[in-house]
């Protein structure tokens, strides 16, 4: 069976920029960051105060009759995003399609608040017992499982956990399941909810969190800003989408994944470069076809110069004509959901012809010398784009997108 073209026909998102797709796009296209003082956790004992939280989210509005109590926040985000993506796609589910629908999700830390509550009960409160839902709320696959139950989809369903590359790895797997005929549709993306004191303390100890804001590629960058949220996209074979007259928002045309095999936290140039090249190769795209890269762009001293060098290595002279931005400067770094939030940002950018900026950019850095779309969004029709995710552990995952024909 020859490979099938894979259309993106639905998008759903809940993130620090908005509780749905429309709100999120409004903020992305305006370059309006969702970063501010962390409200859900007392940060008085931390060296940083700011994060990108999902605000004004009401679990009971989405999960009535106490159903939210059975789901950690990260799993709720996955279902909220998946429901919106399915509505957006307009797919009518038949019994046969339900069995051929894949759900591939990414999450780095899973139900962090559930396990932390259990440990607090045990070690701090001395209760000697933890809540019976601790295990099913904590398990990293809870997001994928709840989508499956909520929407009644019963095909291949699993969660990928590769730290900050989780969602891109998930999207790449889903893309290939649809591309090679293993599934006739897929819901894929990622979700994360990491605002717990234990998690924030652990990130503080890593010394990669900015005390003010996230300034990717800017000389005065001081680290990343943690974020949370969920984003899902619906994938279908191109012909099936066309046959049902679906609106097609874009296409996934390639995926590349590599490992640095080098260091637990320090990235290499070669690993990310090989992942970008592999994505281009599978997509059958010349480097010159890429007009935009949604960068990993964490705003750390470790990532940004290395990613810049990797882009230069892959694109050569064309690197000077590429537009690159890190939307983490807007929605923060949602770890295992990052690639999903950024996939939605990238697809919307291609679809609307507006490239979201790198916010909070103040000073050029000689080590980061590409066009980062500083601060102001840019109107530009782009044929194809890459979305980069590079994880601790040296695991790189790059997704290639093509704009839908207009």
């Amino acid at each position, binding site marked *: 069976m020859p490979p099938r073209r894979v259309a993106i026909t639905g998008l759903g998102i809940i993130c620090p920029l908005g509780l749905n797709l429309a709100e999120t796009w409004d903020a992305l296209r305006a370059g309006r960051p969702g970063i501010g003082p962390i409200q859900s956790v007392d940060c008085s004992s931390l060296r940083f105060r700011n994060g990108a939280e999902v605000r004004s989210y009401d679990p009971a509005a989405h999960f009535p009759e106490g159903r939210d109590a059975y789901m950690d926040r990260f799993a709720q985000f996955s279902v909220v995003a998946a429901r919106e993506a399915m509505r957006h796609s307009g797919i009518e589910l038949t019994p046969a399609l339900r069995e051929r629908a894949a759900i591939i999700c990414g999450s780095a830390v899973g139900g962090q608040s559930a396990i932390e509550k259990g440990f607090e009960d045990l070690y701090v409160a001395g209760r000697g017992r933890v809540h019976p839902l601790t295990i099913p709320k904590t398990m990293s696959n809870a997001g994928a499982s709840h989508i499956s139950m909520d929407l009644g989809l019963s095909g291949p369903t699993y969660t990928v956990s590769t730290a900050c590359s989780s969602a891109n790895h998930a999207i790449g797997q889903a893309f290939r399941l649809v591309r090679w005929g293993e599934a006739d549709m897929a819901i894929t993306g990622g979700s994360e909810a990491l605002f717990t004191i234990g998690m924030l303390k652990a990130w503080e*100890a890593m*010394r990669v*969190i900015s*005390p003010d804001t996230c300034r990717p590629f800017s000389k005065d960058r*001081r*680290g990343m800003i943690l974020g949370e949220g969920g984003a899902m996209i619906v994938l279908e074979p191109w012909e099936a989408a066309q046959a049902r007259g679906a609106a097609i928002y874009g296409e996934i045309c390639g995926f590349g994944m590599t490992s640095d095999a080098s260091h*637990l936290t320090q990235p290499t140039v070669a690993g990310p470069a090989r992942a970008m090249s592999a994505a281009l190769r599978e997509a059958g795209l010349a480097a010159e076809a890429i007009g935009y890269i949604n960068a990993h762009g964490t705003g750390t001293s470790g990532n940004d110069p290395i990613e810049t060098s990797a882009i230069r290595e892959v694109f050569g002279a064309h690197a000077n004509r590429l537009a690159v931005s890190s939307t983490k400067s807007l929605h923060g770094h949602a770890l295992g959901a990052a690639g999903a939030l950024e996939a939605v940002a990238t697809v919307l950018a291609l679809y609307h012809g507006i490239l979201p900026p790198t916010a909070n950019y103040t000073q050029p850095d000689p080590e980061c010398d590409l066009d980062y779309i500083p601060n102001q969004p840019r109107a530009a029709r782009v044929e194809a784009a890459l979305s980069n995710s590079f994880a601790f552990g040296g695991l790189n995952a790059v997704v290639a997108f093509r704009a839908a024909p207009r």
Partner: protein
Amino acid sequence: MFQDRISPTGVGSMSDPVAEKVLATLASVKRLPVENIKLDTNLQEMGIDSLDVFSLLFELENAFKISIPDDEVRSIKTVNDIVNGIKKLLAAAPPDASVGSPSSAD
């Protein structure tokens, strides 16, 4: 216990408890003989990467009851940079009782 193993070549003849503690902690973190580490040792050259430095600083925060700001960490190149940074922090503020736990502060 570390003090017994401090080499004179490491800290010189003058007694410097901060330097001794830093060298001993680094030796412990990297499982190296303390004799092999000197104050002007370049951390990168001896294969000490950012994760080693963060682990070292974590132990030193416990040992000295201080909190080391992230911005101070970026300029660290040698063992002496760490020693001087800690002395500066100790001079600037009294030990922070909230840092460190009974189990990890030795």
